[in-house]
């Protein structure tokens, strides 16, 4: 569950967080680049979900299944949530929303990894 997909998602999310923080600091609303970024992030997250499902199909089991699937569902919902809220708020605060969500997302990815690895899976 760790390795490239998770790390890549975290890095992408942090880059997007920095990019939207820059927009917030310049008093700019989120523009197309942020929405494209959120789209890429969603693809990365879905990739992570596919990796998890493949591992499940291969017989691996998460250490805390309930928490794991809770985090996974939350993770998949985060980028669309950020996109919807950002579109509703075409001011610098929309960019701030994207920043916050992109800072929360890596935490969820880390928690996802922890709930997978509890029993050393």
């Amino acid at each position, binding site marked *: 569950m760790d390795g490239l997909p998770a790390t890549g998602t975290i890095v992408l999310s942090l880059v997007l967080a920095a990019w939207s923080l820059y927009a917030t600091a310049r008093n700019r609303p989120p523009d197309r680049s942020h929405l494209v970024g959120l789209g890429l992030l969603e693809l990365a997250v879905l990739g992570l979900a596919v990796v998890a499902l493949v591992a499940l199909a291969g017989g691996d089991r998460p250490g805390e299944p309930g928490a794991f699937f809770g985090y996974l569902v939350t993770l998949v919902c985060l980028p669309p949530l950020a996109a919807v809220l950002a579109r509703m708020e075409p001011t610098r605060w929309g960019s701030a*929303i994207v920043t916050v969500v992109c800072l929360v997302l890596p935490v969820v990815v880390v928690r996802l990894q922890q709930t997978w690895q509890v029993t050393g899976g």
Partner: protein
Amino acid sequence: MAERSGGPTTTTDRPTRTTSSGPGRLLVAVYLLFAIAATCRAGLQIVTRFDEAPVAYLLSALAAVIYIVATVGLARGGTGGRRTAWLCCTVELVGVLAVGLTSVLDPALFPDDTVWSGFGSGYGYVPLVLPVLGLIWLARTRRDAQV
């Protein structure tokens, strides 16, 4: 427009700052994230291992409900929404301080962590900061909202 009759409260047509736009929308977004996090956590704890720490898990559930109601209150705005949000933020602040203090002084009472344990240290102390920001935001928008 015809003159409105009766009642001490009159509304004006000038644009008002609502609780749900601008910085308020960011606040609503963060509240929404916490509502989701607290609900998932409480739901999971209660379903899977309620017997281990019923007090802590019921408290998690209470916190989750308060976050949800606060989110709705801030998002809706208006007199009712503002009052609801104000009440929730106050309860949250009292809750996070009380539970934080209790969890430090008497850890045995909370064998498992809640959102509010250690003043919300498990969530980057955001649970401690959030109600304060909420109250500040409600106070700052009040001037415009209640004329």
